[in-house]
């Protein structure tokens, strides 16, 4: 303390006030934060579109998701599967390490036996009627007004019911003891940025758009192109739509 040398015009009280004010301002007006403050959840309803005819299986989305969300090793919020249909009707599905490092080789079958083959990126379907939300005993799994299914990590008791309930295998138990899943990068959406996996895709196979915006390209695409969802018979009404989907894909 420099007692006596501090100019008396600044009292300790006003100095502390100024410090807290500045700290608060730094927290509040971080770059991108201005957009977040103008974001009204009820004005949006997010949907996700994957164009299977474009996906090249590079795994850039998986790597981006890991980095953006600090997903623990061995777990995935998004991953890429490879479907290989053989001439006798057999279907091979593989996803080495979630395609974190892409695909190193073709499946171990003679190439002339392959009838068709393609990649299927998987992500939380953010279902309109989510089984995972319905089974949560404490209300830690929920759907936001803008259509994103989230886990309240500070409230989750780690019972794991939601992980068993999800028919798409999109949830996992984070080693910290709470359920974990794709957040559709809500922290990026609220700042006007695309989810990390969408931004990372080099061929534009992934897209995320606002169904409440009539001019949104994703909404236009869903209105004008043929599309499907995974396991429609379950009545979960997923909001992750696939273009070029094959009926064998689960």
């Amino acid at each position, binding site marked *: 303390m420099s007692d006596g040398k501090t100019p008396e015009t600044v009292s300790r009280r006003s100095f502390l006030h100024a410090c807290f004010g500045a700290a608060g301002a730094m927290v509040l007006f971080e770059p991108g934060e201005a957009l977040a403050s103008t974001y009204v959840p009820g004005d949006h309803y997010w949907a996700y579109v994957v164009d299977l005819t474009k996906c090249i299986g590079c795994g*850039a989305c998986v790597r981006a998701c890991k980095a*953006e969300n600090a997903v623990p090793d061995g777990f995935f919020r998004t991953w890429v599967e490879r479907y290989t249909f053989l001439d006798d009707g057999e279907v091979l599905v593989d996803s080495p390490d979630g395609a974190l490092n892409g*695909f190193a080789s073709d499946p171990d079958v003679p190439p002339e036996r392959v009838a068709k*083959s393609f990649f299927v990126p998987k992500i939380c379907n953010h279902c309109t009627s989510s089984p995972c939300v319905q089974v949560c005993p404490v209300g*830690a799994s*929920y759907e936001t007004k803008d259509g994103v299914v989230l886990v*309240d990590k500070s*409230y989750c008791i780690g019972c794991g019911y939601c992980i068993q309930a999800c028919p798409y295998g999109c949830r996992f138990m984070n080693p910290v003891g709470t359920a974990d899943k794709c957040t559709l990068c809500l922290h*990026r959406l609220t700042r006007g940025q695309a989810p990390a996996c969408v931004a990372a895709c080099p061929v534009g196979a992934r897209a995320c758009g606002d169904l409440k915006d009539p001019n949104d390209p994703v909404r236009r695409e869903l209105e004008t192109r043929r599309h499907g969802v995974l396991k429609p018979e379950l009545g979960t009404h997923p909001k992750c739509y696939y273009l070029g989907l094959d009926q064998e894909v689960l």
Partner: protein
Amino acid sequence: MAPKRVEKGGGLSSDGPPGRRVPGIRDFAYSRRLFSLVGAAVILGLVVRALLVPEGFGSDGHHRPQAPAEEAARAPIHQGKATCAECHAEQFAAHERDAHVAVPCEDCHGAAGEHVAARTAKRPPEEGRLFRKLAQANCLACHRQLIARPKLFPTIDVAAHFTKVGVKVPDTPCQSCHDPHQPLFLERPVSQARIHPLIHLCSDCHHDPTVEERELPAGHVVTFRCGDCHKELVADVGSKGHKDLACRTCHVFHADSPFSGRIHKNANPRFCLLCHLEHPFKDEDAVPLIASFEAHREEMADDDADLKKRCVDCHMESAIHALRPSSAPGAVTPTPPPTAPPTVPTEDGPPPTEESPPPTEESPPPSDPGVTP
């Protein structure tokens, strides 16, 4: 006999033994204990509920109303290419002109959050350094030939590619030849490059039979054509009998050998005779035919020396193109003019792009633009 009197309460217990105080339905002394137990349980439950249920729970759906905002408050880690361009303008500009424009910087370099934070805080550069992997795996994550990849997407089989361009070491990084920010251009001037820049037909990269007929999409790399360097040769061949042939019909490229750019089979007559030898199915009006090369040579020869000539020794200038033209192969720098629009890779296309003087043997290789400061 005097009737029994119930001291207090209802008459249900009127048959009870006399002298004993029997509690009735209105006996609060009896029910006080039960009510107080239930009341205590209710109060305890309310207290526990107040302690456990977060404030405002249920006001915005069956969850804590603050939870979505807490989730959204996280700071993004990926910064986007506009942020990269603020400092790395040169690499950004090169990358924007390339076919890889749709590949974000952070796909190859990793998420830039820590890097940018270190820069902003003026911390030592080591702390926020992006990874830079000069390994094949970086490029092959997208470009490895796999059955499942879309047919139009350019892919290579590394072994076949290296055989074609004459690379001996199997794990040579792609960046040894390809500029990391404009991979379809070579790192070095043509004369020093391994790969002859009469690059590929579209179908060399895109596995689709109809690709040659397609228009070059917007943003596609500017491709080299033969006429960019050998303009007089291309003009010359266009005026002669072989004008309908592509240069690659006769010339071999891509070989890291003295034969690069030479005629197939070293101008062995057998190569010319593939087209020009008489055969029942061939039409003489379309292609001049001879019955036998030896007979033709004997018929035309004036002396013994003529009996050793090949086809090109007599027909080169008249039917194919002039030899030793004034426009010897020059060197084209790997970077195209910034304003050059995408062009269709026909071999007799528009005038050549800017030519630079042939580099000297001692000219140092250009600095690696992939280095991140």
